[in-house]
């Protein structure tokens, strides 16, 4: 469940991050302001607050939406609320990573694309995005590892992930230390696994590039 939650948040968070970054490097004022607002507000508020707010704070809003569609009992499940909250936080940090990566791509390439008559969307899809991946990967990897640990917060809204399971087991057996340590080892194992996967991705993405040696 932890893995599923973190992957879902990763996907949504990457989308938020891309949108945020494109807003922040935009040459129009309004998207730039919105992007700046998004990153500074989301990064200034604890993840715990976002998770709880998404779950408990949306009850009446969801009820109102539900009533509109004729289902007044509508509410966000812990999984959906958790995914949104984590994705929101991940997206804010990813925005900065993507922004840095976008700025690292030479402007001439975009102009070359325009000169060849490509549309803006096509330039983004064909030229910018493939390179963005390579530059942004190390930063995104770090963020993903941080987010993996933040998934433990979703146990606070009763989603049955590692943390919650460990809690249940600890209560049932009266051996809290054993089970929390076990949970810690699972997190460490996941971390090591993701670090390995990232290393592989980075090697793959950096084919044909010489690394700057100090």
């Amino acid at each position, binding site marked *: 469940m932890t893995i599923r939650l973190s992957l879902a948040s990763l996907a949504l968070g990457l989308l938020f991050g891309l949108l945020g970054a494109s807003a922040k490097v935009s040459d129009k004022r309004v998207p730039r302001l919105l992007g700046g607002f998004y990153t500074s507000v989301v990064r200034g508020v*604890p993840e715990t607050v976002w998770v709880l*707010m998404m779950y408990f704070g949306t009850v009446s809003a969801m009820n109102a939406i539900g009533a509109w569609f004729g289902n007044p009992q509508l509410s966000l499940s812990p999984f959906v609320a958790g995914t949104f909250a984590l994705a929101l936080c991940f997206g804010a940090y990813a925005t900065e990573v993507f922004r840095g990566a976008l700025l690292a791509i030479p402007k001439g390439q975009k102009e070359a694309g325009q000169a060849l008559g490509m549309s803006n969307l096509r330039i983004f899809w064909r030229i910018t995005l493939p390179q963005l991946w390579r530059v942004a990967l190390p930063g995104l990897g770090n963020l993903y590892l941080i987010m993996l*640990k933040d998934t*433990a917060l979703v146990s606070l809204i009763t989603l049955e992930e590692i943390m919650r399971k460990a809690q249940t087991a600890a209560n049932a057996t009266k*051996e809290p230390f054993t089970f*929390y340590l076990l949970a810690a080892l699972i*997190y460490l194992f996941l971390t090591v696994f993701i670090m390995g996967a990232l290393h592989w991705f980075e090697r793959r993405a950096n084919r044909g590039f010489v690394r700057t040696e100090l």
Partner: protein
Amino acid sequence: MTWAERWATIERFLPQLWDGTLVTLQLVGLAVLIGLFFAIPLGLARASRHWYVRALPYSYIFFFRGTPLLLQLFLVYYGISQFEVVRKSFLWPYLREPYRCALITMTMHTSAYIAEILRGAIQAVPPGEVEAARALGMSRRQALQYIILPRAIRIGLPAYGNEVILMLKASAVVYTITMMDIMGVIRTINSRTYQYELFFFVAGVMYLIITLVFTQLFRLVERWLKVDASRQQR
């Protein structure tokens, strides 16, 4: 509910919110200061040339950076009581209290991160400067004290500022072990007023304000220590 009524509700709970803020600030402040104290030997050992000196701080840092703070908190608060030895020992009255548990856990957690920052900063000190110090006849100890550490502190300070803010945000989980920090107070108010949206919003604003104040404070300290000046020389 009108805005005037909302504000009246908030105002009614202002003293509690203020108390919560103090608890949060106190916890974070103590944790990052004591954490820094422990992190210095850890970071130094982590930057050592010998693998057997590096091994222990490495595993410590790996454990504390690889697991969630919430889990560590539960491990200390609920976990330790599993052992009869601890419960019978003279330490038990201290370890039973949530405040001390939260402080201990947060200190251990943050010292792992600070140690890693310190290691990065030490390794970022230009080797030429260390060699110059040694060439001038300074002992290893002197070089560390007069050249490496002052340089490393300036290099590491911005990252330390970030860590303080990260700890501030991470501290929001201590309410789970019945601490009355900002989040704890907010949860209590919520269960009395059922104004979830309003008071989570208040919590968000409070954390945001503290974050902004901290950011500005660290900017001042950086200017005072002339972090920029040391950066230009590189």
